[in-house]
């Protein structure tokens, strides 16, 4: 079955209010072209899920697409500083933060992948996350040990990932760091893959090259060369610093559509 479609088609399948897990980490291998498209399509009330997000969450907050964020960390690193659009939206009460340790996001996704309602988590000792995040709780050990913290399952409606290679059926492969991408595939109801390269049908049928993501778990494949820009794609391209700074300099939501139009031109 050929699952290749345009970015616009793939993103159109995401309804307002959907819970969406976004692949990559901070400014590394983020499906930014898909993020841009969500903003262009003016999505509303998205519930974002990520361990450590940066420009993806910041942009969707600026665009007004976001209802809530489940994450352990939302910020650029080093000189790129904080996500100011995200901050502003949270401080104004427009976006709800479910603050996690990155690991409780992982545990919540694992619970969804394993089909269980919650996952026990070691180590949540003295932390006010327990009171501020309703997805966290405590449970008795039925085998007589001390109580343990638990996190409720998070089952995103969609996972969107940017990968190096995918075939038209949806078999897909990431080179280098996988971050939480593979777990997101297992945990999510539907998976959209954007890929640097579409490979021939038998590309993966070799002893040494197996897709980490089986086709049957994938709903849509979008050919998106440079689809992670301006974030880094390992072995392909580094962070486009000028582009990140241009985005950070926008200031108001009104400037965003022009920026997105510019990005569309650049992608041609």
């Amino acid at each position: 079955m050929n699952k290749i479609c345009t970015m616009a088609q793939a993103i159109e399948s995401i309804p307002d209010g959907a819970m969406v897990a976004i692949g990559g980490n901070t400014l590394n291998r983020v499906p930014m072209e898909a993020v841009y498209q969500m903003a262009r399509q003016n999505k509303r009330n998205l519930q974002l899920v990520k361990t450590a997000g940066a420009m993806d969450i910041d942009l969707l907050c600026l665009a007004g697409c976001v209802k809530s964020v489940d994450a352990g960390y939302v910020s650029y690193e080093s000189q790129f500083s904080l996500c100011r659009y995200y901050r502003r939206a949270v401080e104004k009460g427009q976006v709800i933060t479910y603050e996690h340790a990155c690991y409780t996001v992982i545990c919540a996704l694992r619970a969804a992948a394993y089909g269980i309602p919650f996952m026990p988590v070691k180590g949540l000792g003295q932390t006010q996350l327990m009171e501020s995040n309703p997805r966290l709780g405590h449970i008795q050990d039925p085998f007589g040990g001390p109580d343990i913290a638990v996190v409720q399952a998070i089952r995103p409606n969609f996972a969107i990932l940017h990968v190096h290679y995918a075939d038209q059926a949806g078999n897909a492969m990431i080179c280098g760091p996988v971050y939480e991408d593979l777990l997101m595939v297992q945990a999510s109801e539907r998976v959209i893959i954007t890929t640097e390269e579409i490979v021939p049908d038998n590309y993966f049928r070799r002893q040494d090259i197996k897709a980490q993501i089986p086709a049957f778990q994938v709903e849509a494949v979008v050919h998106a060369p440079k689809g992670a820009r301006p974030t880094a794609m390992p072995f392909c391209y580094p962070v486009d610093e000028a582009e990140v700074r241009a985005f950070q300099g926008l200031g108001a939501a009104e400037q965003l559509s022009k920026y997105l139009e510019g990005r569309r031109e650049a992608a041609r």
Partner: protein
Amino acid sequence: MIRLSDMMTVALARLLRDGETVFCGVSSHLPLVAALLAKKLHAPGLVLLNIPGGVNPEKPRLSRITSAGSELWDSAAAEMTLAQVFDLSMRGGLDVAFLSGVQMDNRGGVNASLIGDWRQPKVRLPGGAGSAVLIPTAKRAILWRTKHDRRTFVQQVDFLTAKGNVSDVMTPLCHFVACQGELLLNSVHPYTSIEEVAENTAFPIRYKVLRKTTPISDAEMSALREVDPHDLRSIEF
């Protein structure tokens, strides 16, 4: 003239022992360089763990933008995903986690979440990343912060993101160590004084023996330049 970033990095490196498993997360260039320095100097068997999942990358060319990128994966001998690194800590197998925060108190409490009340935060901060689970489970959680002022070292944190096994806190001015649940001043860096530390700290400074931090040796400085030729340890200064 000793640079603050050099002193902090070297002092952090000295805290690491041979054979230890050491985790550095996002936005952690300075401790990452410290770990590479320790490996070069006195801890060749140190095991460096990180977000991209490269175990023990060999002479990585660090990125200025991220401490979670593939440059820490490329030259690694083995792969261990972030989830697995967390798991390691959860089951008691992580020796050292480097973590930071925006506020820290003298009981080892860390706030990386928000300023104000959590129901309606005045300032939304990045979040604790791994802190809430790593600080209680790593054998030693070493905190570092490139600013030393009264807004950082507070009487009480606005929000408790994490607390637990904090063993050390390293700042541009000094080194605190945890003793029976309290942070005690262990040493002040050569270029400063206990008065300057006290002036810039909102909690009372207490200590058992007051030491000066050992100055950076020539060997340390030359190894530091080798592992961090592009001075990424200084990007937050």
